[in-house]
């Protein structure tokens, strides 16, 4: 009774995590400047490991593998926001200005997408 339900939930979490990862990749490629790319990459780097590792943990149950996977998840949840914050701070300290609507209009709307 409970076994197919866990399999179904695990499959749903894996597929949702993969979809989030692809959406983040598309955002990293298509967004206009470094801060928006960092938003797409950083946010989906937090939610995709949560869903995918959660789905894998549900598959293995109480096992040594689950402990190692939860350890990976713990490290990733600490390190990816820290790396995103450090990257944004370094870009701001290097003097890169965010692309706003006014600046894009001033430059003649030449840099619309990429």
């Amino acid at each position: 009774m409970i076994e197919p339900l866990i399999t179904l939930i695990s499959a749903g979490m894996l597929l949702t995590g993969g979809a989030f990862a692809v959406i983040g990749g598309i955002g990293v490629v298509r967004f206009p400047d470094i801060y928006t790319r960092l938003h797409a990459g950083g946010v989906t780097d937090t939610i995709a490991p949560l869903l995918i590792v959660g789905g894998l943990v549900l598959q293995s149950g109480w096992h040594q593998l689950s402990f190692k996977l939860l350890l990976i998840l713990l490290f990733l949840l600490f390190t990816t926001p820290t790396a995103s914050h450090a990257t944004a701070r370094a870009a701001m300290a290097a003097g890169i200005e965010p692309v706003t609507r006014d600046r894009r209009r001033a430059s003649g709307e030449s840099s619309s997408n990429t």
Partner: protein
Amino acid sequence: MTNVLLATILAIFTTMALALWRAIRGPSVFDTIVGVNVFGTKTVLLIALIAYFSGNNDLVDVALVYALINFLAVIAVLKLVRQRDLAASREPSDD
């Protein structure tokens, strides 16, 4: 369940290709760092998924080591880009 694992692995591969494209193309060095950071995180997930897909459970340890090395590499490269020197002790006077 094998098909679900395979579909997720293909999605992760797609994301890694997109992030690598941004890392190669990126106009500034920080775009490269964002691409490499996304690529490294997805590498950890890919190794964990391949461990379940192939039934070779030892690969989870490799994923654990990758998760640690990736963070250290990003921080080290950021410090190197900003200060031109990994041994510098203090920030120059800015912000």
